[in-house]
């Protein structure tokens, strides 16, 4: 119903490409960047979140060095995502970050501490030093994952916005049941993803341990995912309107369930690369579902639908969106090429050497 109201707001002078308007294209680009971020930083955040499950100094060190050369590059996707939102949808950028002021500051401080912990941990031989940084690293990774999930949950559930698209609630609002459930699911998803990644990168006894942890975190993820799904279906039915209205799209959740089911199957077979790809695809499909549910909204306001921000009323001018798409068209193949080159360079099991963290 509200969705329909917006077709009239839609500017008639919109430029299109392949029959899809440019704003929607940029929404797709933004979604792709966020998925890229979740998949890439997801495994290193997950590896951080399960860090304290490893008991040996050497194991912890190997686990950190498994993500060592790439975590920084993974985090850049967040910067690109922030830039993509700022550039294409400045109204949404302004509303989201001034609304999520406190959780976002906590998230940012978490990012700083995590980076510092990775850098500092192995600098001194004292056990107390390494233990302290291990705890900082693990706690920061958990806080980052939870706050990402919390913000995602609130974006999905909607925020109270006034007519100028400004947030009118306070920070206690963010702790609603849906967002808390999404936060826990995000953490579980990242932990599973990270555990599978570490299984790929380790050998010997640590490898055996990681296999066990991969199974456990897969169970953790499936449980929290099922609870969140049932909660959403029961208490926030309008979030599944899209799929109810278009049964053909049910193929996406179905595909995702197959993907999730494939993870334990591949784990059992010892095919960790396939398990990792499955969990990466699961993350992508989850975000595709979120995108289909919220589109054309970037930030929905159930209390005051007129204050909602869509990809149309929150976007930059057509000229800017066009420029951005050109930038993305030139930039994406470049980034993809050298990212794969870097990942390929560091493929295989981790070996500690004198340049290691």
């Amino acid at each position, binding site marked *: 119903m509200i969705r329909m109201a917006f077709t009239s707001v839609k500017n008639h002078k919109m430029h299109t490409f392949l029959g899809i308007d440019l704003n929607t294209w940029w929404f797709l680009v933004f979604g792709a960047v966020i998925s890229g971020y979740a998949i890439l930083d997801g495994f290193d955040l997950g590896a951080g979140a399960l860090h304290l499950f490893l008991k040996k*100094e050497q194991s912890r060190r190997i686990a950190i060095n498994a993500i060592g050369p790439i975590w920084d590059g993974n985090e850049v996707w967040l910067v690109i995502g*922030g*830039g993509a939102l700022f550039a294409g*949808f*400045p109204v949404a950028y302004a509303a989201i970050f001034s609304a999520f002021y406190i959780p976002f500051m906590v998230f940012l401080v978490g990012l700083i501490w995590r980076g510092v912990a990775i850098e500092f941990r192995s600098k001194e031989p004292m056990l107390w030093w390494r233990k302290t940084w291990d705890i900082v690293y693990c706690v920061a990774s958990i806080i980052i994952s939870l706050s990402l999930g919390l913000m995602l949950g609130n974006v999905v559930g909607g925020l109270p916005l006034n007519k100028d698209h400004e947030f009118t609630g306070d920070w206690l609002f963010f702790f609603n049941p849906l967002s808390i459930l999404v936060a826990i699911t995000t953490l579980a998803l990242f932990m599973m993803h990270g555990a599978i990644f570490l299984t790929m990168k380790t050998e010997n006894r640590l490898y055996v341990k990681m296999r066990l942890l991969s199974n456990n975190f897969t169970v953790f993820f499936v449980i929290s995912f099922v609870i969140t799904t049932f909660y959403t279906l029961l208490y926030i039915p309008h979030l599944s309107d899209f799929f109810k209205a278009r049964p053909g799209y049910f193929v996406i959740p179905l595909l995702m369930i197959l993907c999730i089911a494939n993870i334990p199957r591949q784990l059992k077979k010892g095919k960790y690369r396939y398990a990792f790809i499955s969990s990466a695809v699961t993350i992508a499909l989850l975000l595709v579902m979120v995108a289909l549910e919220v589109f054309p909204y970037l930030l929905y306001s159930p209390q005051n639908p007129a204050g909602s921000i869509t990809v149309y009323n929150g976007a930059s001018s057509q000229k*800017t969106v066009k420029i951005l798409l050109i930038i993305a068209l030139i930039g994406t193949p470049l980034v993809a090429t050298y990212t794969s080159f870097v990942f390929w360079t560091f493929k295989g099991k981790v070996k500690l050497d004198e340049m*290691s963290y």
Partner: protein
Amino acid sequence: MDVEILARIQFAFTIGFHYIYPPLSIGLGLILVIMEGLFLKTGNRIYEQAVRFWIRIFALIFGIGVATGIIMEFEFGTNWSTYSKYVGDIFGSALAAEGIFAFALESGFLGILIFGWKRVSPRVHFFSTIMVFFGSLFSAVWIVVANSWQQTPAGYHIVGEGINARAEITDFWAMVFNPSSVDRLLHVWIAAILAGAFLVLSVNAWYIVHKKHLEIARPSFKIALTVAAIFSLLQLYTGHRSADGVSHNQPAKLAALEGHYDSSSRADMYLFGYVDNKREKTMGIKIPGGLSFLVHGDFNAPVPGLKAFPPDERPSQVNSIFQFYHLMIIVGMTMIGLSLLGTWFWWKKTLFDKRWLMWIFAFSVLLPQIGNQAGWFAAEMGRQPWVVYGMLKTSDALSKMVTANQIIFSLILFTLVYIVLFALFLFLMNRKIQHGPVDYGTKEHIEEGTKRDNPILEHDPDGIYIRKKS
């Protein structure tokens, strides 16, 4: 305190802290490229050891630069959401280009730079070093373009009114090449290169004074000295171009830089002095008519003074702007003098015998840092009360819904985090410098024993338990 002052303090603090690091990575990037290039060309292991040493320091600096930079990107949205909406169409596209063209390039190849020595060939490693340097250069391009657009807006038109007014791009290339962007970009690039060069000079001077690692310190010092001499002289030119640009595009800022109030009189250029903000008078040692000469080529021509602008359209902290600007110039001149002096003694073949000069160089790392900070403060405070010159006032750019308490909370949080971060940075820098450019696995290194950078604990072949199994 009101939200505006708090938000400005927070921004100045976080950007000031951030701005210590990226210039160092740009400057060090160039030095790394030169050193590794020399290694590949000559095959001399001295250069390899030097480049390996500086890559470790580069990694540390880069890490803190990224961490503090992510905060900057989102601070526009948290504290300055009206500004974000107003300039998003323009600023955002520059920021997006920066992310995709610069940051991704830099961080992607950094992994190979640090951890890839054994995994790729020397040529591929050298290529990665060049890519990291290019990435850091590009990252300066887009952010300086965005900032220059705030100083001298171009290629846009205004759509909407009141709170919904915003600037939209009409001409992308006119926006990118706005009147001040090229001059300011060159000025920032060179300042960054100087920051890197003086860091290398300083550390190596310290080694030379203490007679340590001489066989590596001396050639490294000469590389950095060459870079410093060339670029500090070039900076004179870009500095002049920037000042010239300001005189055409931002007359109120120019007047504030030199504390010039009276439009009817000739304008003086000060070496140093003091501006009495209340009585609107400037005192100090000056070149009479110097500013008139800069602007018009005539010592007696009048230049618009601050009094020509309504009080709410000109900067109020004139003395601070004046001092920051002159501090930057003094520091710049000192760097020219110091590097020329060094070059002179190098030519006389007595460079490394001058202990007093080495001591001065050991502390010279502070010069470009002071210059960079002072220059930015002058540029940003000189633009006040505007955040986008002539279009949007800083007081109108705030997030409407953010309260003073939220900003105080985050300001305290950042202050604490940054103090710890800075202490850890100094601690680690000191360790790496104390450790020196010693090759791992060599006799010299093994004798150094415990000073290994990242010690591996090997008491037990199976690794030791950090926590007892329960």
